[in-house]
């Protein structure tokens, strides 16, 4: 005896409602996991970038140090050369002043510029000319001045004037250089 005119359908576990729920849940899981993967990848990228930045900073720091050493060296070269140039100029002025100091009536035959003094050899008509025109200015410059005289063939006097400073001329020149 038949109760129905249609054939019975086979019942499945996956009803449309369950399919919908599973799809929704699958999407949720997918989104969760993809967020997690995104975070993992980003963190890894950040760490790599951080390592790169640290390395770049180290290289830059090293470059800066090298450049700073070069800068210090050039400044040192510049300071030393300026000191030398000024010293040469001061020396030139000193020698010029020395020769200007010698009056026309006195003739020099030899001049020795030492580290701490000056030795002059020359000829003078008489002691007075020497004492007034050369000895006096030399005494005002140097701390210790010694003179000795020898008669020359023409009746004039040969002299040797030895003058010393308590400080080195070089030191005084250095001070002048530093002042400039």
């Amino acid at each position, binding site marked *: 005896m038949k109760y129905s005119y249609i054939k019975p359908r086979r019942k499945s*576990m996956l*009803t449309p*409602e*369950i399919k919908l*729920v*599973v799809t929704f*849940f699958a999407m*949720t*899981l997918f989104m*969760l996991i993809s*967020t*997690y993967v995104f*975070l*993992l990848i*980003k*963190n890894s990228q*950040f*760490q790599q*970038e*951080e390592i790169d*930045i*640290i390395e*770049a*900073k180290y290289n*830059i*720091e090293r*470059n*800066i140090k090298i*450049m*700073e050493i*070069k*800068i210090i060296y*050039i*400044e*040192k*070269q*510049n300071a*030393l*050369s300026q000191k*030398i*140039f000024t*010293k*040469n*100029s001061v*020396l*030139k002025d000193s*020698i*010029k002043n020395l*020769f200007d100091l010698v009056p026309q009536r006195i*003739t*020099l*035959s*030899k*001049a*020795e*510029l*030492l*580290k701490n003094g000056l030795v002059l050899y020359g000829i003078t008509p008489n002691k007075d000319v020497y004492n007034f025109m050369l000895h006096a200015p030399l005494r005002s410059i140097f701390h210790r001045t010694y003179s000795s005289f020898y008669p020359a063939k023409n009746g004039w006097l040969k002299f040797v004037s030895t003058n010393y400073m308590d400080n080195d*001329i*070089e030191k005084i020149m250095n001070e002048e250089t530093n002042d400039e």
Partner: protein
Amino acid sequence: MSKITRQSIYILIISVFLFIFVLVFSFSSLIPEGKEYRKEKTQLLAQRQDLQRYQDFEAQTYDTLKKLQANNRHIIAAFDKEFLPERFVKKYKSSFNSLDVTKVQTLDLEEGFSVYDVKTSSQISSPAVFYKFLDEINKSDWIIAVNFPIEFVRDGEVLNSSFKMKVYSNSKDLNRSKLVKK
């Protein structure tokens, strides 16, 4: 009371499973990773700013160096140049009646630079030539300091002068010269 269908039980089981999974996954992995992400991002931002500061300072130091090198080109080259007596004589011979330069083989270190002592003897017509020489030496290819003792001796119409010079160069010359000596 309504009857609970099998379908509802399935949905309930799946929901509970998903709920537990989401909770466990979130607290064990997702949230810590998110916190890490935020921390890393902040750190990276700070590092980027730091790097920018470093790069700016590097550029600034580079500019300073280049400016210094450009302004002191002559001095840098002079310190680098090896002193050759023949070249010196060739360059300054015209100013003197005669010029003789002897490189004394004593090397010293002064303020980090190697220093050669050079003995010079020359014949000049007047002290003015020596003044001119002292002016010119400051523009020479080497860093030279004229040093004591300086001697001028009259010989008829000319002056014989002898003096010492100190030639300064970069200290690497010291090693080179020591090797040559050995």
